[in-house]
């Protein structure tokens, strides 16, 4: 027993040494980029945290097809992606909202679609809310679930942090300004919203449909509400009838050429449809 343990630790130490050696060696010789026929080079992609896991998976598959290419995906938020491609820090930006007026000079390519819907705790007796009711709840005009047919309990309102793609979509659809929102909890990423609502029976929030559906199917105590009577399903997003939806886009500074072009084409192709579905987004085409 003791012998085996020391064996194992020796092996671990050896392994660590090898790792150190490799890393030391590769510092010595910087990566050189040669312009051969086969695709080579390094692609830096930054932006939306919603998209980062998806694009990272696409990058891995692209790398396996073209071994001389390296694709580094960094997260940080939609506007970060735009800032980075403007400063030349990244080749491609990931943006999960439509571009603002002053960003229209950039070149956008959608690679998938995503919907946003209202979520409540599973035990909440309310099954639907009209747009007016949602606006009233988010502006603080309605503060108790009784006013919309629920239990006598104060409403806990969740909203997204300012600057998030999801918030901008929500505000635009309901014609609100972020200053008008009277929230009790401000969240960052989708999963945090689901976890917060699941932990509070009187909460209301809005998150990406994919995230909410995935969690609800696996027994997390949340339920998705329809918007204007349209069920929040991936199918309705795919058909384009769900009102609150957004494109997930790869954005470049000017029309992409060379390696970025090849990667964007790859990200739109049917070769990655399974990856898009795995991350609970809606692919461009079936």
């Amino acid at each position: 027993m003791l012998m085996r343990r020391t064996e194992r630790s020796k092996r671990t130490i050896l392994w660590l040494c090898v790792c150190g050696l490799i890393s030391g060696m590769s510092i010595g010789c910087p990566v050189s980029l040669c312009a051969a026929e086969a695709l080579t080079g390094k692609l830096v992609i930054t932006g939306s945290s919603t998209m980062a896991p998806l694009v990272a998976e696409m990058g891995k598959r692209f790398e396996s097809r073209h071994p001389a290419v390296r694709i580094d995906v960094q997260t940080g938020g939609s506007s970060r992606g735009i800032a980075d491609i403007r400063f030349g820090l990244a080749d491609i930006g990931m943006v999960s909202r439509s571009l603002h007026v002053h960003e229209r000079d950039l070149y956008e390519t959608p690679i998938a679609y995503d919907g946003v819907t209202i979520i409540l705790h599973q035990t909440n007796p309310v099954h639907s809310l009209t747009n007016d009711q949602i606006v009233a709840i988010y502006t603080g005009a309605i503060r108790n679930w009784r006013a919309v047919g629920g239990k006598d309990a104060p409403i806990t309102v969740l909203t997204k942090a300012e600057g998030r793609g999801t918030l901008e979509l929500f505000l635009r659809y309901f014609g609100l300004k972020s200053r008008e929102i009277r929230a009790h909890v401000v969240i960052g990423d989708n999963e945090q919203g689901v976890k917060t609502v699941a932990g509070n029976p009187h909460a209301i929030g809005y998150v990406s449909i994919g995230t909410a559906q995935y969690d609800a199917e696996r027994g997390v105590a949340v339920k998705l509400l329809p918007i204007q009577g349209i069920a929040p399903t991936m199918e309705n997003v795919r058909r384009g009838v769900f009102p609150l939806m957004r494109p997930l886009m790869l954005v470049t500074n000017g029309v992409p050429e060379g390696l970025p072009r090849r990667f964007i084409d790859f990200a739109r192709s049917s070769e990655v449809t399974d990856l898009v579905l795995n991350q609970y987004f809606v692919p461009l085409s079936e």
Partner: protein
Amino acid sequence: MVNKRSSPWLPLFQERCVALVVWLAVGLVTTLFLWLVSEIVLQGIGVVSWEFILSAPQNAGRDGGIGPMLVATALIVGVCLGVSVPLGLGTAIVLAEYTNENRRLSQWVRRSLDVLAGVPSIVFGLFGHAFFCLFLGLGFSLLSGGMTLACMVLPLLIRSTEESLRAIPREYRLSAAALGLSRWTTVTRLLIPLALPGFAAGLILGVGRAMAETAALLFTSGYVDRFPTSLLDSGRALSVHIWDLAMNVPGGNSHAYASALVLVGLLFAINLTSSFIADQWKKHALT
């Protein structure tokens, strides 16, 4: 009897009360600890295996393992300690042994260090991004991340080592000088071994903070989850991976718990080893 302050039973009563309070506090801390750890262990143990520890993540981390994150974390912490331990130890000795405690300059230095030890990690992250990644052009890399953490850990290390050097009675130094020991011998054979508990505590806290750091690393070492091949590669630290799984990947809970379990286990192993080494060194150096 009762109104006499010097009565024999009042101090005894007080003594018992304090002991009770101490044991209650310790019970509370232990309960909290067990609560937290049992949560991590119960939820994570089912996923952890050699396969999980060695392989690369798949499907945004829902499947596969955490091999690249472990390598990235080890390299980041290695860079961090490689930079901060020599600098920190040297600086602490200078502050405690070579400067007059009451001189204005050394007071200012000490004060600045206290301030920097309190600066939020995310602010160091901002600095690291602006300085190492952009200004020095290191980009998102393990080197940037490690050096950012070194800046973060340095004040902590200096202050805790210096405090324990200062706590060594002056008589020890005078005796050493009277024996004609050189400064080198005094420092290495007497002062460092005596200051070791403080240094070890500072180091353990530093490593703990470095390995647990999330916010600062997100902007410096990045998010790339492949096996790093050089220190200039971007690499995702284990803590960043946990955060991403918990907050951004639906269905990432079980792998988040498993990764947390591995990280906590790793830290426990490091603590055991470092305090073992510290004990050995102390015994060896003082005899």
